[in-house]
């Protein structure tokens, strides 16, 4: 076939044009998020989000991004006070117990799911039974193991569940159910605000897959359309949300999904999004000046440690040695120079925002004292080969501070320090779990629910070796006894005192060395007001208004 030259070139151009236009993605549909700041009542805003890791099911979401969306879409039995993080009733009318073992939960009227279905006692019981069942492989499964009958639903690896309902859950009537725990647990009420304990509508069980992309919750916002992966998740005000709980003020919110915090921050500066609750380190130098009182900077729930595989490496078994290492670390310098103030020196195993935290509880142990550290180090017999290895994950910006710690140890204790970067945090955990790594390691903990207990049992108790985050393999029977005693307390205040006694044992033993606690930083544009972040550094969206 012969083509004239002009025809050939026209054809080529046409092909290109066609390809371009064929690929233009539905730019026709117009959404309303452009009119933020228009000053009308209600209004719409966009906020920053990272792509959630799982389908949006409360029982399967443990990471911050998915939780952020779920917190807008769901209302739990209890909620946490934005100031002191104490639990306050939300969907629950009352949560009562006489012995911290049998709990009676009554629900308020007026809550409905976004499809109109009423929120009943059954909605909670069904959701918990689903979450507790090992066959459903939900991330939050371990949270149900305090309830009677959980071992039948979760018999362990390579076994099949023999029941699909927790014996400890009983529906009394539409608005009342009881929970029986295996042992007293004074913090149970506090735990109930965690998203694992959110209710699920019947629609979830008929089409789980659809629910993951467009969850039907009972919160102040309902989903608008579907989760558009890597792009956005849109939610709008749920009109039938009970006014007593506080209807959302905004008409709609778009969670815009970002890959890089730097891009989100630039979008915030250009007013393309209105709130971000995560700032890139590169912004820390200028954000206070640029955003003034629209920059939120407050303590958050996370604690960063240096951990030791005590169980597998005899070199680390002397508490005196761990104390010496702790005292040789200049926490102040690290948080200031390396983290530009995005962290604060740790002075307790408990985060400063949690009821029960005691300022300066670690005392001398966390006070930089090179001379004393050296002396203790020599007394403790030192390290084999006079070297220590510190492992960290290379994907999370930990290299700098770990190397700073290493240099301080080198200088103050006169030891050799080597570093072992792991590709990601999961790789360290796997290596420790399989006992393939025996050096010191970087570790961190962020709470699931704001209870002092959540900073003790999941990280340092015996049960956490198998099921939780006790990667050090630390075991102390006194500590176990102290926990059990605190669990059995009748009321919160008494419980907190007793948990502090358990904390004291950790401070003496120092299985991990707390180095810093996290600060959350958020910023918002002139277009919005009433912006607040909770203990996990997440936005309280229902109260946000256009300015």
């Amino acid at each position, binding site marked *: 076939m012969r083509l004239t030259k002009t025809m050939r070139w026209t054809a080529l151009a046409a092909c290109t044009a066609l390809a371009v236009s064929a690929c233009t993605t539905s730019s026709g549909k117009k959404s309303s998020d452009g009119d933020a700041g228009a000053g009308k009542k209600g209004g719409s805003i966009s906020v920053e989000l990272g792509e959630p890791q*799982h389908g949006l099911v409360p029982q399967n979401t443990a990471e911050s991004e998915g939780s952020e969306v779920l917190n807008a879409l769901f209302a739990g039995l209890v909620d946490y006070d934005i100031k002191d993080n104490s639990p306050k009733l939300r969907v629950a009318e009352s949560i009562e117990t006489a012995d911290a073992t049998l709990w009676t939960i009554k629900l308020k009227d007026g809550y409905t799911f976004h499809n109109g279905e009423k929120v009943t006692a059954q909605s909670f019981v069904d959701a918990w039974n689903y979450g507790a069942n090992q066959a459903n492989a939900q*991330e939050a499964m371990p949270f149900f193991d305090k309830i009677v009958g959980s071992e039948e639903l979760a018999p*362990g690896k390579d076994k099949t569940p023999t029941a699909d309902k927790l014996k400890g859950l009983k529906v009394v009537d539409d608005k009342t159910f009881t929970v029986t725990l295996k042992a007293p647990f004074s913090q149970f009420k506090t735990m109930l605000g965690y998203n694992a304990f959110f209710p699920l509508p019947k629609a979830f069980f008929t089409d789980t897959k659809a629910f993951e992309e467009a969850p039907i919750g009972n919160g102040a916002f309902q989903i608008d359309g579907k989760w558009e992966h890597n792009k956005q998740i849109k939610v709008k005000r749920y009109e039938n949300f009970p006014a007593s709980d506080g209807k959302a003020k905004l008409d709609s919110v778009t969670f815009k999904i970002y890959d890089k915090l730097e891009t989100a921050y630039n979008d915030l500066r250009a007013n393309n999004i209105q709130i971000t609750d995560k700032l890139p380190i590169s912004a820390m130098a200028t954000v206070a000046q640029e955003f003034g009182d629209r920059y939120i900077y407050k303590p958050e729930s996370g604690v960063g440690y240096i951990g030791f595989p005590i169980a597998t490496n005899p070199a680390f078994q002397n508490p005196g040695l761990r104390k010496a290492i702790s005292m040789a670390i200049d926490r102040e310098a690290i948080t200031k120079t390396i983290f530009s103030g995005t962290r604060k020196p740790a002075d307790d195993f408990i985060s400063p925002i949690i009821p029960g935290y005691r300022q300066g509880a670690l005392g001398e142990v966390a006070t930089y004292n090179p001379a004393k550290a050296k002396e203790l180090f020599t007394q403790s017999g030192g390290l084999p080969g006079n070297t220590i290895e510190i492992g960290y994950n290379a994907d999370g910006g930990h290299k700098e501070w770990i190397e700073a710690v290493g240099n301080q140890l080198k200088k103050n204790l006169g030891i050799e320090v080597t570093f072992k970067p792991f590709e990601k945090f999961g790789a360290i955990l796997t290596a420790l779990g399989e006992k393939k790594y025996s050096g010191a390691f970087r570790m961190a903990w962020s709470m699931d629910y704001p209870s002092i207990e959540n900073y003790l049992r999941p990280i340092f108790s015996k049960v956490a070796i198998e099921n939780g985050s006790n990667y050090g393999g630390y075991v102390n029977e006194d500590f176990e006894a102290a926990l059990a005693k605190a669990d059995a307390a009748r009321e919160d205040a008494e419980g907190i005192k007793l948990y502090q006694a358990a904390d004291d044992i950790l401070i003496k033993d120092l299985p991990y060395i707390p180095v810093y606690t996290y600060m959350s930083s958020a910023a918002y544009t002139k277009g919005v007001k009433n912006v607040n972040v909770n203990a996990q550094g997440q936005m309280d969206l229902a109260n946000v208004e256009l300015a």
Partner: protein
Amino acid sequence: MGRYVVRRIIQAIPVILGATFLIYALVFLLPGDPITALAGEKRQDPAVVAVLRDRYNLDDPFFLQYWHYLVGLFQGDFGEDYRGNQVVDVMKTAFPYTINLALIAIVIEMVVGITAGVIAALRRGRFIDNVVLISTLMVISIPVFVIGFVLQLVLGVKLNTDLGIDFFPVSFNEEAGLRSYLLPAYVLASTSLAYVARLTRTSLIEVMRADYVRTAVAKGLSPLRVVVRHGLRNALIPIVTFLGMDLGGLMGGAVITEGIFNIPGVGHQLFQSVYLRERTIVVGIVSALVMVYLFANLVVDLLYAVLDPRIRYE
């Protein structure tokens, strides 16, 4: 020519098969378990891990897993990722963005690069030639992410906040349409653009010395006609080769640009999937990219005949 095209397409089959195998094996060999990657920073209950490993046949030996994948592939099933999303759907949403980005980038490369090269060649040794040489040298030596962040800050943020001109969106924005692609496409194209300019310059200078150009000039043809029809047309052959190879490169190399400008395309997806050990997605996307490469090469080879009629395919 038809037979030539068919032969080339048949040759592509073993290449694609080999590529899927290699990629599958490479992702399989990466340390780290996809199920733990899925859990993020927290440890999952061993019982939950066991259920999930079983669900995705992760405890099967490598060849059995690959075989399952291949069988699915021949039935048109690209499989699903560990979050239960269909790989086809993931690719369908990601590819259009990257294709748009790469095509706009290549247009920018062609228009700006060739023009700059022609001007530099015709004004050899003069001021404008030096400007082109120095500016291309600068673009080549600055890393792409630096160019990206600087342009984003200057044209996206500063232009908007200081002068109120909101023409270049900071991050990808569906409503802004084509505008959203201009900045990232320019960033993506920048390095190649510099190469195209230099290649055009050298190639054209070479051709302009040829006898047939001297003849054309002697015939009294207008300078424009001489340069475009006799000079540039012959000079274009190495440039077309470069552009063709570059199209595949642009699509695969969009990881950085798509990250900076938050474009939900293939590069973005690929990076995430390698990180999360999502074998099926990585293999799917990479195989598709291999096909793009093969196709672009075929088009390049066919274009030679258009540019130089002495080249024939039988």
